[in-house]
């Protein structure tokens, strides 16, 4: 894989890691390790997000049903109210 850019590595460190090839290899491994850790966090975040959505999706039909029952009762009450108001006082 050809070089497309350069990074500055402290000279002492470069000697310690066995030169340019060693530095490039360790840079790649270090970045892979960081990327894996970062993706693990991202995946955990998306799993939590999906779980929140799933819970809401499970709750919503119950909420819709609750409002439908309340609406049916309110419509019944309206008829009663209209009936009572329609009565000659």
């Amino acid at each position: 894989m050809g070089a497309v850019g350069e990074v500055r590595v402290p000279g002492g460190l470069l000697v310690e890691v066995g030169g340019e090839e060693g530095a490039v290899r360790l840079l790649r491994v270090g970045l892979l390790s960081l990327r894996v850790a970062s993706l693990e966090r991202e995946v955990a975040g998306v799993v939590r997000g999906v779980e929140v959505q799933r819970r809401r999706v499970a709750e919503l039909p119950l909420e819709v049903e609750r409002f439908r029952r309340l609406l049916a009762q309110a419509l019944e009450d309206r008829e009663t109210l209209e009936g009572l108001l329609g009565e000659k006082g």
Partner: protein
Amino acid sequence: MQLRRSAGKCVRVGVSREIFDLAGELNISFDVETVRMIIGLGKKSVGQEAELERALKRLEEEKNRLASDFREIASQRSQLEAAWVGARNRFAGVSRDNRVLAMHLSARAVSGVRKERLRRELIQKYILNYRDT
């Protein structure tokens, strides 16, 4: 291998597109301290390249699959929320109308025990205990 010496006892080392891409995904810039830190991390994981590559591939696939699940569930949620808002608004509308009717009724008298009980119950429900949805 030729090492190009630069000022500050640092050496410029050529790196591949893959390394730049990884750094980009991590939002990392290659200042000297960061390079030192990454190389330090690399030392701890040396020999695990294949394992890390597999983990990276697996996690990227998992992330894409989850993102697709997330979009699908978000679409379901959006449809259900529209139904929920509709049901809630219809109920709220009728409920408000009933409140107005109950106010008129509170100024009226009705005949009969059953009707009086209904009148009291409805006044209780739509005036005294009324709550907006």
